[in-house]
């Protein structure tokens, strides 16, 4: 601060007393808190996008896993996965309808596609069940 600045500063300080600050009026805090209560919802944690779309995400992941495994598992070794599943289904006394897909579409589809289709049907049921659970939670 040069001399002129110092001089003007000193002169102004003769008039300004920092202790004389204007105090907030009575009831100021309660007024602010009333406004804050009205605003409460602003601070509620926003639902994260991944949580919001949890149901379709789980469905997609499981579907992709099923499709990938259907294509990647060598043709002779599908029994490793299929047998336990089939055993469970047998215990439930549930049988798949005997549909000859090849004759229907004149396509030569790998036998594992049957499981994929069944998987998709199961997932649809699973997806509906999850959707109901999450809706109830909300």
């Amino acid at each position, binding site marked *: 601060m040069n001399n002129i*600045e110092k001089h*003007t*500063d000193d*002169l*102004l*300080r*003769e*008039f*300004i*007393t*920092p202790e*004389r*600050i*204007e*105090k*907030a*009026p009575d009831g*100021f*805090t309660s*007024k*602010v*808190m009333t*406004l*804050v*209560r009205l*605003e*409460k919802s*602003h*601070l509620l944690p926003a639902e994260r996008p991944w949580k919001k779309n949890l149901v379709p995400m789980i469905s997609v992941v499981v579907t992709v896993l099923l499709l990938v495994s259907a294509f990647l598992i060598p043709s002779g070794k599908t029994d490793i996965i299929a047998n336990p599943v089939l055993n469970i289904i047998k215990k439930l006394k549930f049988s798949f309808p005997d549909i000859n897909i090849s004759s229907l579409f004149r396509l030569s589809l790998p036998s594992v596609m049957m499981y994929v289709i069944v998987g998709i049907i199961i997932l649809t049921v699973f997806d509906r069940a999850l959707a109901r659970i999450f809706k109830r939670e909300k």
Partner: protein
Amino acid sequence: MDYKGDIYYIEQILAGNNNSFSYIVDRHKDKAYNLAFRICGNREEAEELAQDSFLKAYRSLKSFQMKSSFATWLYRIVYNTSISHVRIKKKGVLSLEDFPADATDFIGSNTTEEEADNEYRSSLVNFALQKINEEERGLVSLYYYEELSTEEISDITGISKSNIKVKLFRARQKMLEIIEKVEKKRLIYHE
């Protein structure tokens, strides 16, 4: 009751305890109100501006990164809110006639001469403050009333330190000119 520090209460609020905000308001209300009052020059408006600033602070508490102190962050909100308000609601320029020429106007039945003189000086400074522009008012208030350094003021206003010094110098000169004129008028009144 012991004040545990701004950060403690901010964490409480973010965890869902909204009542903790009252401790923060209680601690900073006078400084926030004072800054708003010095910039807008009206008590009712200052109260609204300070309340509005606290509400803004509450709403954006999640974005407070704790890089600066909470007080600095709050001052920034009060400063910007008050400046914008004054700019929108530009008032007519005060004339010297708007200021009473006699200090005795401020002497009430229960006040001493010293108290009356202090009151006079305080009103004179307020009057001079209202004659300079809103940005200068904010700077003078932060520098002289809140006693902040130019670095802290720079943090609050976003104006560079060197620019603050220049603006403060101009503001001081303008205020002293106004004070001088009023004082001259006062002397003439007494003669």
